């Protein structure tokens, strides 16, 4: 049940036919994990907090630095040196005190991933490197929970939603890996991509619209174009190939 305050807070989105009171209650009962509290994690966390997701679990081992501030809008000058998850939790609770923010300052790896994402309805990818994205991808497949992939570089970004056993996974798309690197980026790009990821999460939780499954969206901020490419499950995929189809 929504409280009187929640009805007022979410009034404009409850007015959307596809959401309504029932949908808002679903969002309130949901738990989403945001893997990373940086460039992508910032818009994702802000908008999911504003939308009233009942519980957000934010995981990031890093601390805020000055060079983060061109894009990581969760963090301000006064936060330099703080754990990103602590900085994020403080801001998000100021924005919406009716939801629960879990701040976990850990490095995601093969060993702890399953426990970190236990009880979550979906994982949102806000990482800054490909190896950890593969850890998230594999974890989502093993746990059978959706993985909403996003990545940026320069003026470019991409998004794809993975429904384990139903749609192509990240590994079906990629040939190999790349070592972590310092990448160029300007904040408006993760802003666009993170908002699309948050939109996908809300749609998934509510069971509405058409998800970005078996296709990925490529955003080019310089040309201001969105291109869509079809992707199929790879039966030989070393992450999801052995998972029976849930079609």
């Amino acid at each position, binding site marked *: 049940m929504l409280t009187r305050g929640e009805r007022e807070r979410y009034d404009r989105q409850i007015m959307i036919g596809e959401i309504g009171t029932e949908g808002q209650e679903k969002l309130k009962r949901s738990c989403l994990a945001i893997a990373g509290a940086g460039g*992508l994690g910032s818009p994702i966390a802000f908008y999911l907090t504003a939308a009233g997701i009942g519980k957000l679990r934010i995981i990031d081992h890093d601390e805020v630095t000055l060079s983060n501030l061109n894009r990581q809008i969760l963090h301000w000058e006064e936060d330099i040196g703080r754990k990103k998850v602590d900085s994020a939790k403080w801001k998000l609770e100021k924005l919406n005190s009716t939801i629960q923010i879990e701040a976990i300052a850990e490095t995601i790896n093969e060993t702890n991933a399953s426990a970190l994402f236990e009880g979550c309805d979906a994982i949102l990818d806000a990482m*800054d490197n*490909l190896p950890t994205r593969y850890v998230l991808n594999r974890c989502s497949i093993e746990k059978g929970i959706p993985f909403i992939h996003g990545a940026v570089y320069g003026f470019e970004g991409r998004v794809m939603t993975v429904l384990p056993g139903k749609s192509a996974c990240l590994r079906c798309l990629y*040939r190999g890996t790349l070592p*972590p690197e310092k990448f160029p980026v300007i904040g408006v790009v993760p802003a666009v991509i993170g908002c699309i990821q948050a939109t996908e999460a809300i749609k998934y939780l509510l069971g509405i619209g058409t998800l970005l499954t078996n296709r990925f969206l490529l955003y080019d901020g310089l040309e201001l174009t969105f291109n869509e*490419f*079809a992707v*199929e499950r790879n039966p030989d995929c070393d992450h999801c190939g052995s998972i029976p189809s849930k079609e």
Partner: protein
Amino acid sequence: MGVKVHIHTTHRQFTNGAEVVEVEGQTVGECLEHLIHQYPAMEKALFAKKGKLLNHVEVYLNHASAYPDELLKPVKDGDEIHLVLMLAGG
């Protein structure tokens, strides 16, 4: 009428700024060979060694992933190839 190859923004420095290059070939691999014949600097931008694409290069044929075995995929006149680079930042 051949096959159109859409060049990624960061690769256009190797194609004299061309966004789309017309090529010929029976497979994706042959089309990329023809691309490199026209613009030799594209070889290092696409291939780790002969017959092996760089890890971060993705090939899409008619807006669908050509992975795996991209280079062997058959093409016909009017087809379009997009060369896309993997992104890993966040």
